[in-house]
C-alpha cells in the first residue's frame, strides 16, 4: 500500500477497483432488465457517502455516533426547503446540495460542542437521543416541514449544456447513476486526502490516546468538532441526494434509528476506518436490504410462495432476523470487517 511512501496515490487500488466496477454496473441492466440495477445502485451511492461521513466520526476519531440519521434528515430537509417550489428560495440542485452540507456542518458542530467531555458510552446515548429528537422536531414543525407529508416535489440534478448532456430524471436513471457516481468519486478523493493530511493524523491521535495527543500540543476539542462537522456535512449531503432521488424529503421517520444503524453497519461490516471498506459495506448492506431482499420476495411471490397469511411465510418478515444474525456472526468471527484497515479501531 502506498500509504507508507511520501507520495500518496490519488486513489488506492481497492478504490479504483470498486469505483471502476460500479461504473460498469449499468451493463448489467441489459442482462437483468427487470431489476433495474443502475437505478437501485443510486441508493447504494447515497449510503456510501453517508457511511464515509460516519467513518470520519466513528472510524477515524473514535467518537461513537449512533444518530447519524439525524444529520441525513437535516440535510434532506434543508435541501427540500431551499429548493422546493412551495417556498420562495428555489436555489436549485447544486446550491441546494452545498447548502445542505453547510447546514449539516453547523448542526454537527452544535451537537458536538456540549458533548466534548463525555465518555464514549455517554456520547453514544446522547447521539442516539439526538437522532430521536430531530425526528420529533421535524415532524412537529409542520408549517415548515410539512410534517409526515414531506416536502415535494424536489429538483433532479442539473447538468450544464442540456443540448450536449441532456437532462437528468427518473427516465434517465443511468445518467443519474453516473452523475452520483462522479460525486462519490469526488467524496472518496477528498476523504482520502483527509486521511493523509495533518488534520487526519490529529483525528487518529485523538482516537488512539487523547491525553497523549494533548501533550503534543494538539487540541482534541477542536479536532473532535471538526470531525463532527465533516461527518455531519457528508451525511447531510447524502440526505439531500437521497431527497432528490425520491423527489421528496419523505417523512421524518425515514431517517430514524434504523438508518443510523444501517450506516454504522456499513462502516463496521465493510471494515472500520477504511474508505474502501465503507464502499464495500454500502454495496453489501444496501444491496442486501434494498435489492436482494425485495426482489427475492417478489420472485417468491410470483411463484406462489409467501402469499398465505402466515407471518412466517413472507421473506420480508425475516429482515430483522437476517440483519441481526449477520451482525452477531460478523462480530464473532470477523470483527474487523471485510476490508482490514491499517487504521482500524482497537479500543
Amino acid at each position, binding site marked *: 500500500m502506498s500509504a507508507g511512501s511520501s507520495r500518496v496515490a490519488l486513489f488506492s487500488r481497492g478504490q479504483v477497483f470498486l469505483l471502476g466496477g460500479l461504473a460498469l454496473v449499468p451493463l448489467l441492466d441489459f442482462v437483468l432488465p427487470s431489476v433495474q440495477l443502475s437505478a437501485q445502485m443510486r441508493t447504494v451511492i447515497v449510503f456510501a457517502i453517508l457511511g464515509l461521513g460516519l467513518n470520519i466520526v466513528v472510524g477515524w476519531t473514535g467518537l461513537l455516533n449512533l444518530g447519524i440519521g439525524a444529520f441525513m434528515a437535516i440535510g434532506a430537509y434543508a435541501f427540500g426547503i431551499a429548493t422546493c417550489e412551495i417556498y420562495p428560495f428555489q436555489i436549485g440542485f447544486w446550491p441546494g446540495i452545498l447548502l445542505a452540507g453547510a447546514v449539516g456542518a453547523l448542526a454537527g458542530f452544535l451537537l458536538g460542542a456540549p458533548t466534548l467531555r463525555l*465518555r464514549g458510552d455517554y456520547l453514544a446515548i*446522547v447521539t442516539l437521543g439526538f437522532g*430521536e429528537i430531530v425526528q420529533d422536531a421535524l415532524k412537529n414543525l409542520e408549517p415548515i416541514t410539512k410534517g409526515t407529508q414531506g416536502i415535494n416535489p424536489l429538483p433532479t440534478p442539473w447538468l450544464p449544456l442540456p443540448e450536449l448532456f441532456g437532462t437528468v430524471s427518473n427516465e434517465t436513471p443511468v445518467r443519474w447513476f453516473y452523475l452520483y457516481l462522479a460525486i462519490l468519486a469526488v467524496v472518496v478523493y477528498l476523504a482520502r486526502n483527509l486521511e493523509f493530511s495533518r488534520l487526519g493524523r490529529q483525528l487518529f491521535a485523538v482516537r488512539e490516546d487523547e*491525553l497523549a495527543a494533548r501533550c503534543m500540543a494538539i487540541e482534541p476539542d477542536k479536532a473532535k468538532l471538526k470531525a463532527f462537522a465533516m461527518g455531519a456535512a457528508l451525511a447531510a449531503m447524502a440526505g439531500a441526494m437521497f431527497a432528490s432521488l425520491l423527489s421528496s424529503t419523505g417523512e421524518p421517520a425515514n431517517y430514524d434509528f434504523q438508518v443510523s444503524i444501517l450506516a*454504522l453497519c456499513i462502516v463496521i461490516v465493510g471494515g472500520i476506518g477504511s474508505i474502501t471498506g465503507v464502499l464495500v459495506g454500502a454495496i453489501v448492506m444496501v444491496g442486501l436490504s434494498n435489492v436482494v431482499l425485495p426482489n427475492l420476495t417478489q420472485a417468491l411471490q410470483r411463484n406462489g410462495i409467501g402469499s398465505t*397469511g402466515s*407471518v412466517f411465510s413472507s421473506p420480508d418478515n425475516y*429482515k430483522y432476523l437476517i440483519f441481526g444474525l449477520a*451482525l452477531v456472526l460478523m462480530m464473532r468471527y470477523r470483527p474487523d470487517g471485510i476490508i482490514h484497515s491499517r487504521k482500524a479501531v482497537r*479500543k
Partner: protein
Amino acid sequence: MTDTEVFLQQVIYGLSNGMIIALVALGYTMVYGIVELINFAHGDVFTLGGFLALTIVGGLGAAAVLDMNTLGETSNWMLLFGLVVGAGLFCGGLNVAIDKVVYKPLRRAPKLTQLVAAIGVSFILVNIALFWGGVPMDALGGGNAAAAPKDFPEILEGTNLLGEESNVVLRLEDVAIFAITVPLMIGLTLFVKKTRLGRGMRATAQNPIAAKLMGIDTDRVISATFLIGGFLGGAASVMWSVYNNTISFQMGFRAGMDAFTAAVLGGIGSMPGAMLGGILIGLIRAMSDQYIETQWTNVVVFGVLILILVFRPSGLLGLKQREKV
C-alpha cells in the same frame, strides 16, 4: 380541576411511569457496571416479557375470567404477581442465555464490536417478537397482524382510590406499581450490600481481575447480574403492559430509550442513579406532557439530559473517572 389537582395528577403519572422506567434502567446499569456493555438487547428482552405475559393470560383462558365483576379480587393480585415472577424469570433466563452465547465470547473484544453484537441481538429479538405477534392470540383482541399492537387486559380494578368525587385519580394499578417496584429495589439494594454474591458483584464491577484473584467466580457473578437485570426488565414489562393495556413488538424501543436516558442521567453503573434517573424521567415526561406539549416531550427530556451532562459529565450520581497517567 384546580391547578394543584392537575399538578398532583401529573405527579402520580410521573411516579408510576418513572418507577417502571427505573426498573428497566436498573437492568441496563447493573449489566453496564459489571461488563461495561450497553446491552442494547435489554429493551427487546423487556418486549418479550410482555408477550410472554399476554400469552400466559391467554393460555389460562383468563380472558373469560377477567370480567368487570372480578377485577380487584385476590386471585387477580395473585395473577399479577404470578405474571411478574414468570416474566421476570423468563427474561432473566433469556438475558443469561444471550450473555453466554453472544457476549461472553466477546468479553475481550473492543467496545464497538460488543455494542454492534448487542444491536444484532436486539434485531433478532425484535423479529422474534414480530413472529410471536403473528401467532393468533385473538382470544384477547387486538389485531392478528404480526406488527399490530395487541390489547392487554385490565387485571386490576380501575376505580379511583381517592373516591368517586376526587378529580385526582389514583388507581390500584398505580399502587401495584409501587407495591412491586419498591420491594424489588429495596431487595436489590440489600442484596448487593449484604450478600456474598452481592459483594462479589460490586468487587467485579470495580476490578474484575482483582476479584478473580481473590477467588470470586466472576463468570457466576456476571451471570447472576444478567439474571437479576433481566428479571427486573421482565417485572417492569408486566407492569408496563398492565398500565398501558397494550403490547407491541416495538415497545422495547421507547422503553429502552427512556431507560438508557435514565441510566445515563443518574450516572451509568450506579444503581441509586438508575432509580433516581428513572423517577426523574417519569416526572419530567409527565410535567412536559401537561405543561408544554406531548409532541415536544422527547425534546424536553433530551434537553434536560444534555444540560445535566454538560455540568456533570458522569451523570448525577456517577463517579468521576480520573484518568491514570
